[in-house]
């Protein structure tokens, strides 16, 4: 491979990873904006999506599409259960308690996955053919196209949902001011529940579309989760364009860094970017600074 085709290759894989990070970031933003919680267990939904699909495929012998739908439903259920069992019953909602509970949930889900499915890595079959396409000398797997397509679709649906549907608008109202929203008759509790459901669903989809490319195992949730978090931090906690750009940027830097600097420090690159952003511009790259209410 010559230099330019290598570059294309890095960019391509960076962008497809970045798309995934953006989706995971969306999940963070949706729950955070509805509840103020940063859900540490977000990455586990991603893991669950991939693992459920593989599990359903091998045990129930369903067609891939059906397995995917079922896996998304199951992951969403886990999200709902999590909210009902661990978030809603909370009485003293100290921020620290919420941090600890979501961390607890995250390692609980990871541990349960390990017990059920073991420590092996699993591969999900690609959605369509496995024959690579060649563009400027770089190989594209059809799965890359699936990733870009589905990500785009989710971004559009997400945008439409929050801008035009009653439910989406109600969720935004809650995010803006839960008390005022409850005064106009919005059931805040349902909206919180819904935010967990939606972000679990999006997270699991991210996990499913990436699984054919990168393989999956019980413990992929931490890394993917933090990278999604990094994307949403760059995007200023929005479930919109900022986070998409954040994800793509992170994916690109990571893949170029791994390619040209050192593959073994690939993950370190993502975390150093995360720390830099948190240190220098915690409000995100694309957002104005806000004054924290006292």
């Amino acid at each position, binding site marked *: 491979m010559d230099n330019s085709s290598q570059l294309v290759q890095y960019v391509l894989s960076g962008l497809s990873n970045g798309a995934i990070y953006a989706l995971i970031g969306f999940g963070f933003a949706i729950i955070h904006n509805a509840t103020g919680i940063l859900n540490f267990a977000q990455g586990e939904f991603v893991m669950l999506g991939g693992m459920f699909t593989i599990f359903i495929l091998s045990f129930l012998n369903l067609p891939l599409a059906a397995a995917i739908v079922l896996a998304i439903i199951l992951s969403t259920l886990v999200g709902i259960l999590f909210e009902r069992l661990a978030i809603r019953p909370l009485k003293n909602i100290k921020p620290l308690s919420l941090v600890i509970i979501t961390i607890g949930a995250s390692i609980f889900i990871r541990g349960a996955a390990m017990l059920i499915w073991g420590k092996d890595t699993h591969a999900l079959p690609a959605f369509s053919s496995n024959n690579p396409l060649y563009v400027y000398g770089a190989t594209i797997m059809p799965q890359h196209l699936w990733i870009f397509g589905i990500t785009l679709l989710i971004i559009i649906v997400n945008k439409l949902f929050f801008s035009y549907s009653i439910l989406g608008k109600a969720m935004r109202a809650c995010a803006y001011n839960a008390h005022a929203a409850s005064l106009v008759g919005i059931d805040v509790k349902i909206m919180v529940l819904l935010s967990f459901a939606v972000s679990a669903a999006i997270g699991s989809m991210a996990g499913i579309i990436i699984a054919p490319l990168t393989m999956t195992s019980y413990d992929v949730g931490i890394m993917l989760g933090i990278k999604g978090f990094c994307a949403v931090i760059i995007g200023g906690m929005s479930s919109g364009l900022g986070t998409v750009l954040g994800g793509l940027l992170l994916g690109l830097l990571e893949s170029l860094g791994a390619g040209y600097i050192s593959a073994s420090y690939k993950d370190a690159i993502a975390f150093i970017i995360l720390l830099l952003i948190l240190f220098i511009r915690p409000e995100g790259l694309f957002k*104005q600074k*806000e*004054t924290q209410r*006292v």
Partner: protein
Amino acid sequence: MFKVEGITQIFGGLTALEDVSFSVAPRSITGIIGPNGAGKTTLFNIVTGLYTQTKGQVYLGGKNISFFEPEILARLGLVRTFQNVELFGQMSVLENVMVGLHTKSKSGIFSCAFKLPGQIKEEKIVRIKAQQWLEFTGLADSADVAACNLPFGKGRLLEISRAMAVEPQIILMDEPAAGLNSRETAGLAELIRKIQALGTTIILVEHDMELVMDVCESIVVLNLGKKLAHGTPREIQENKAVIAAYLGED
């Protein structure tokens, strides 16, 4: 002695304060009134260094203290109480006041961990002083109670005791009478005068007009972020604009 000049605060698109200026005489009691959302708490947050104003200056005793950090301001003798009581809930009432005395002692981590003699002596003095402040505000009986278990009215008193322990030149009180019954409010008026008698300047944000008219020597009226009037209680009561914007609402 204390002065704000041209304070403007813009949050995103919202102008919470616009070009607010006034000054306060030493040892006086100044009231700041205005309808909900007028920007009173925002002004306090700016003065105490919690918010960074978009524009404007704050002076204390001739010194420009705009943009100073809260912990520096405390050492310069400027403290406040909070509208939504901000006590140290897990600590006892006495310990809350002892935190107010933080600036009056100086042992560091090392001498605290090793209990060096200087630290032990300091600790004794701090304890005695804290006890005295509790007696000053009438909370001495509750010294050992955890602050989170304190009834609301006493919580407001504890906020004042803790702030007074800093031995401030000027104390800003944000709605100290909110949630108090009439007997407690009368006690509060008494306490405010006692604080003034110590030589402390007081700025009081309050919705309880009776209290404000009773204790304040001068009153600043804010409305929609702008200063509407500044004068004696009598002048304010007769001010047409104020009546229209504010008193007329009742």
